[in-house]
């Protein structure tokens, strides 16, 4: 008896120890939730969990001072714009310090950065730096030598007293450069590969409500001068995909659309999910928010990262949340929050992604926060990737596993429904599309189901029609005959 007890104690301890990491992983310092078709909030498992911070101190280069941008190059190197220290810090893919770029040779003289706010690296490792206070964009070769400078753009559309202070910069495969500059409301500034200003792209039109129009009409000129100006919102963050589509974020105080996908002509081609009670889902983070007090107002989206296969994540600085959407505009998962615990932000300013990791730069803390995908997160990621490539059949297994973890995930039902539809199981497919709230595909499945039933029972239906017609004729004849008899009797 006693022996058994002694043997039990370490067993229990082992069991407890085994539980500990699971507990740690499931209790993250932020809410993980999502919105369903009816725009109700439901809580989900965590898609990403915190997996450590990297600060300047623990690398031994001194604290980052108000860093403003982070970029992961195609070879895995991580570039950080350490704005307050006027330098660019480069890490390798394992987050070990690679080099620090704080000066370059310009016409024989040593030149430095002055509060660089944005950093971007092309596929052939050309480094673009938005050198804000020096009023220029610096382009460096891989070896650190100067390739070109973009400064003093001149154009008829720019005011004569215009000061070009770039904040964010990206470049496409052909060398076109897109810049977000301070106090520019007309859109994103586009430059050709020689650094000549070619115009604004992606301009957001101002929308004035009828109420505001009437109010303005009624007020006097002096009142109008005091009223707020209707100016378009500013762009806040940029990313670019391999095909040259620019993903740009902007502030939308109404919370309708905070991210745009601009084609080379500057038109917004982003897709919004139609699977929504309002008919068109918003692309702006949170759907509901407090009106006053701490953490109030619509999500302030400050940066976007395109993660491949149509997936992109946007960063909300108001509540420190990261919202991830797929190519159809469906909200995949939400995580992150503000606070002072590990894994929460003080002032998140930039977001990047590499493999199944998400890196967020916190300007106040001067740290890069890393998040790793959980099983839940990576299942969704992989399933969406497969769907994007058109391999819906292989995605089904993953969707089923997603549903085991989160039975409210509507997209998974749609995914499984599509494969059922392809295999001809229309009735089951209808059920799944209904759970996934997809009316379009439900209707397709229903049509096929109805056709099948009609086809199977066509014989019976036709027979019934013929029998009924004959019956009707017989009955009416009999009535006529009866009526005739009655008349004769009279």
């Amino acid at each position, binding site marked *: 008896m006693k022996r058994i007890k002694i043997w039990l104690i370490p067993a229990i301890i082992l069991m407890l120890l085994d539980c500990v990491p699971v507990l740690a992983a499931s209790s993250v310092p932020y809410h993980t939730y999502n919105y369903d078709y*009816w725009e109700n909030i439901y809580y989900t498992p965590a898609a990403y969990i915190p997996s450590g911070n990297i600060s300047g101190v623990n690398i031994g280069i001194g604290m980052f001072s108000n860093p403003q941008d982070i970029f992961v190059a195609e070879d895995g190197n991580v570039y950080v714009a350490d704005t307050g220290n006027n330098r660019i810090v480069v890490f390798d893919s394992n987050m070990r310090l690679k080099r620090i770029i704080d000066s370059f040779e310009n016409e024989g003289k040593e030149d430095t950065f002055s509060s660089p706010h944005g950093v971007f690296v092309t596929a052939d490792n050309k480094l673009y730096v938005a050198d804000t206070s020096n009023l220029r964009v610096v382009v460096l070769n891989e070896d650190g030598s100067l390739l070109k400078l973009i400064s003093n753009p001149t154009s008829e559309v720019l005011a004569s007293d215009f000061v070009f202070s770039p904040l964010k910069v990206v470049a496409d495969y052909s060398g076109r450069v897109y810049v977000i500059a301070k106090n520019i409301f007309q859109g994103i500034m586009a430059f050709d590969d020689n650094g000549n200003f070619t115009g604004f792209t992606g301009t957001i039109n101002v929308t004035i409500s009828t109420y505001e129009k009437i109010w303005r009409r009624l007020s006097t000129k002096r009142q109008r001068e005091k009223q707020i100006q209707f100016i378009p919102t500013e762009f806040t963050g940029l990313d670019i995909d391999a095909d040259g589509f620019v993903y740009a974020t902007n502030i939308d105080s109404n919370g309708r659309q905070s991210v745009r996908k601009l084609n080379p002509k500057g038109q917004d081609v982003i897709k919004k999910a139609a699977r929504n*009670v309002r008919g068109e889902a918003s692309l702006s983070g949170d759907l509901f928010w407090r009106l006053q007090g701490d953490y109030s107002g619509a999500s302030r989206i400050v940066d976007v990262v395109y993660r491949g296969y149509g997936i992109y994540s946007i960063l909300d600085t108001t509540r420190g949340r990261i919202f991830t959407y797929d190519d159809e505009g469906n909200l995949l998962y939400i995580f992150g929050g503000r606070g002072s615990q590990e894994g929460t932000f003080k002032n998140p300013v930039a977001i990047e992604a590499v493999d199944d990791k998400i890196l967020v730069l916190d300007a106040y803390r001067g740290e890069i926060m890393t998040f790793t995908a959980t099983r839940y997160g990576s299942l969704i990621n992989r399933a969406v990737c497969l769907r994007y490539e058109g391999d819906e059949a292989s995605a089904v297994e993953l969707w089923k596993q997603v549903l085991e973890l989160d039975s409210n995930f509507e997209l998974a039902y749609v995914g499984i429904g599509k494969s059922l539809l392809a295999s001809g199981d229309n009735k089951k497919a209808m059920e799944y599309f*209904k759970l996934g709230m997809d*009316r*379009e595909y*439900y*209707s*397709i499945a*229903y*049509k096929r189901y*109805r056709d099948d039933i009609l086809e199977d029972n066509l014989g019976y239906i036709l027979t019934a029609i013929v029998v009924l017609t004959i019956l009707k004729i017989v009955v009416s004849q009999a009535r006529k005959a009866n009526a005739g008899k009655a008349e004769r009797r009279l």
Partner: protein
Amino acid sequence: MINKEKFKYPFYVMVHPFDGFYEIRHRGKGSVFVALLLVLLFGLSFSINRRYASFVVNYVNPLSVDSRAEIAGIFFAVLLLAVSNWSITCLMEGEGRFKDILTVIGYSLLPMVLTLIPATILSWFVASSEEGLYYLIITIATIFTVILVVIGIMTIHNYTFGKTIATLFLSFIALLIIIFIILLLIYLLQQVFMFFQSLYTEVILKI
């Protein structure tokens, strides 16, 4: 009392609105009981339609359907409309009595009562490209009801068409005023209630 004729009469009114409503006013052919029964049936079929219309055409969250509240709401709306119309037409030489107005509104709902449930059943058999048929039926029934209400109000008060529209518009404004006064009354009563409640608490604590 209520006989078979009274139950059949709404159908006659539906196809002969001018004669039908005239006889309601002047020959006592209508019945308030039947009218209220029609309102109840409309409330029921309205809720059934919201809850059981097919997924393809139904954009209502099933969790938000509460048939008791909806039926009560429809009764309240009918009552409000009748009261506001009565209070306006009284001042504008309308000949209709309150029970006539109530009867007109109730009887006019018959097309909706007759079509909502068949439309719901039809919706189970339509795919997304055929949903137009469903909406067509509902729209025709709604327009029919509106036409019946206008003709009914016009006939029982012995108005011209223009005057009918004007009184209906004024009724709508009266309706808003009634709602405002009800809310005001509730608020004031609440204040009075709270005054006595605090008085009671005060006394209890002093003793």
